[in-house]
């Protein structure tokens, strides 16, 4: 199966290992992965911050870059949500069919055991857009439960926003920090050494807070766990 990887500008520039992990997992499962080099940004940040004309241009561009692919996979719940929910509003028609990474593994490839091994205590944070816009449900849990050696502990109030919210974190830095403090408290309560999620952006926020406070807990995108041999 030939799959286009929509990595997102964010992962491409700041977290390239997430992209490498997605490629590893998809190739292990027999997919042929293509990375359309013309891709830049889906326009989420512009749309959500109030720069609608700019977002619309980026949406049109995205629509051209990814035209013609059978399947488009992205390791980002919020970017997938933008294409799925935001584009019909911006463009007046549906954008190309984008699957969030865990949706693709379970719904399209029909696998829950991707042959990974990860001997660590891990807790999972349900990111807002994956949960409430995409409705990924328990897909990430089903994938994590099949990982060898992984000790999955439930995160209290997992469904509560971490406080990132894109530019919310800089436009309302104090409220964002207060929300982060509660999220970190819940993470520490689990005794986990790793927090994972399907969105790197939320993890960057949570991980930044944990590292800054020397909490001894790291963040890892779910693709990196599933790519571990």
């Amino acid at each position, binding site marked *: 199966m030939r799959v286009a990887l929509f*990595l997102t*500008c964010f*992962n*491409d*520039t*700041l*977290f*390239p290992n997430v*992209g*490498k992990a997605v*490629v590893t997992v998809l190739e292990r499962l027999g997919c042929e992965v293509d*990375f359309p*080099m*013309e891709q*830049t*940004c889906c*326009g989420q*940040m*512009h*749309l*959500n*911050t*109030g*720069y*609608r004309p*700019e*977002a619309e*241009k*980026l949406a049109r*561009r995205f629509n051209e870059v990814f035209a013609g692919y059978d399947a488009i996979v992205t390791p980002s719940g919020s970017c997938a949500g933008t294409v799925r929910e935001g584009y019909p509003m911006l463009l007046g028609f549906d954008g190309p069919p984008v699957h969030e990474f865990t949706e693709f593994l379970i719904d399209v490839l029909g696998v829950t055991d991707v042959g990974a091994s990860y001997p660590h205590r891990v807790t999972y944070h349900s990111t*807002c*857009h994956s949960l*409430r*816009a995409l409705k990924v449900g328990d897909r990430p849990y089903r994938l994590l439960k099949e990982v060898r050696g992984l000790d999955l502990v439930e995160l209290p109030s997992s469904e*509560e*926003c971490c*406080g*990132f*919210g*894109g*530019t*919310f*974190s*800089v*436009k*309302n*830095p*104090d*409220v*964002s*920090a*207060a*929300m*982060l403090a509660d999220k970190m408290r819940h993470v520490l309560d689990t005794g986990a050494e790793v927090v994972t999620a399907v969105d790197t952006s939320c993890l*960057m*926020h949570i991980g*930044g*807070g944990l*590292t*800054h406070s020397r909490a001894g807990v790291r963040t890892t995108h779910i693709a990196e766990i599933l790519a571990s041999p």
Partner: protein
Amino acid sequence: MTDILASPGTPDGKPVTSHGASGDDVVSGEFETRTVPMPWPRRRLTPFPAAAKIKLADTQLRRNLRKATTTIRDKRQRVVDELPDWEELREAGRAIKSATLRDLDKHLEQLEASVTAAGGIVHWARDGAEANAIVASIARQHNVDSVVKIKSLLTDEIDLNVALAEQGISAWETDLAELIVQLGHDESSHILVPAIHKNRNEIQAIFQASGLEPTSSEPRDLAMAARQHLRKKFLSAKVGVSGANFGIADTGSIVIVESEGNGRMCLTLPEVLISVMGIEKVLPTWQDLEVFLQLLPRSSTGERMNPYTSIWSGVTPGDGPQEFHLVLMDNGRTNALADEIGRQVLQCIRCSACLNVCPVYERTGGHAYGSVYPGPIGAILTPLLQGMKGSESLPYASSLCGRCYEVCPVKIDIPTVLVHLRSKSVESHDHFSINDTAFRTLAWIFGDKRRYETAQKLGKLGGPFGSVFRPWSSVRGPLAVAPQSFRSWWKEGHS
């Protein structure tokens, strides 16, 4: 909708803290309970982020809010989960409201005709000033120097108490939490539970300072002290003033749902009743009410049914008020109606479920929003009613987490309206903005692969963000661009 018994706090609370009203023009010192506390108009001077910062530092407020919102949230979830057809009810609520708004003029004229036929007198008010003048003039015609009031957001919206005070008329709040807010020279901080920011010890102190004599800070004792004070007001009042939860066009009935019974007293004891209703509160038929009387209590107080539902149609000889006035008010509602995406805000039935699930509201409380309508619904309602000027920061007071939309009983897509209003906010900029320049530059970079790759290589992607991202690192450490981008790795070996 009247609040549930307001005792959200903990027994170990401190005395009244400084997070109440700004109080700069409050008449301080003693006053006794026969004099109404001098009200003052609500002001919005501070942008949300700055107002929120102050509230976040109030540890007592944080604890009160966490406890109260969590309690109501859990209660709501329990009673919503009982109904197998909850999603169908929500859809029915949305559909009825949205269809009604499409023919609002027709339904309002029918309501006017029905109320008039039932012996009521209907007034029309374009804005708050007109509505206030109508209420004041009716009160003056009856030579009263005080009125009793049922908790009403709409009369808070138009500062009716201030307008009446200017005419020498005292407006007594009879809802327990509104009374606490009034006696404390404070402002409401929640749609349903106006005194949610106060715990029982703080309430006892406010009562004592106002001449009420609670024997302890137990909720029952506080309620008994308020009751003693309020009974005298109910029995001597000639004029009652209320808002309206619903106005039924085909029967001319007005509906008020509440918990404490103070509303029933205000609606039945005075000789004259004045109800001020927002024009969006009309429902076409009696039958429509069945949907909303299921949606509202469960979403609002987390009860299957609220204790008191008062419904009256005009005037009935020998029973209840013998003179009934209905004031139908616009005050910006037609502005909201003209906004294609924003108009769904007029579906709101003021249940406050969105406040109780909002992670922002839970941490800042209502005062930070600088409006009688706080929380997610306030962040869209305030700018839609009043215009963007002065409320530019409100549509940004959300992480767009989507919980508000999930619980809204009439399916208002609050995140979409927030994003829409953010666009309107950016469009309204008539000054140079470094953020606008940064975002437009970034969009220009993203518009072309070579520009994007060059920016990546030069590490300049953070460049236009410089001013935007400065507050980031103080809490979360520095942001670092990866030494090698994914695309560069891909080009090297993976084609």
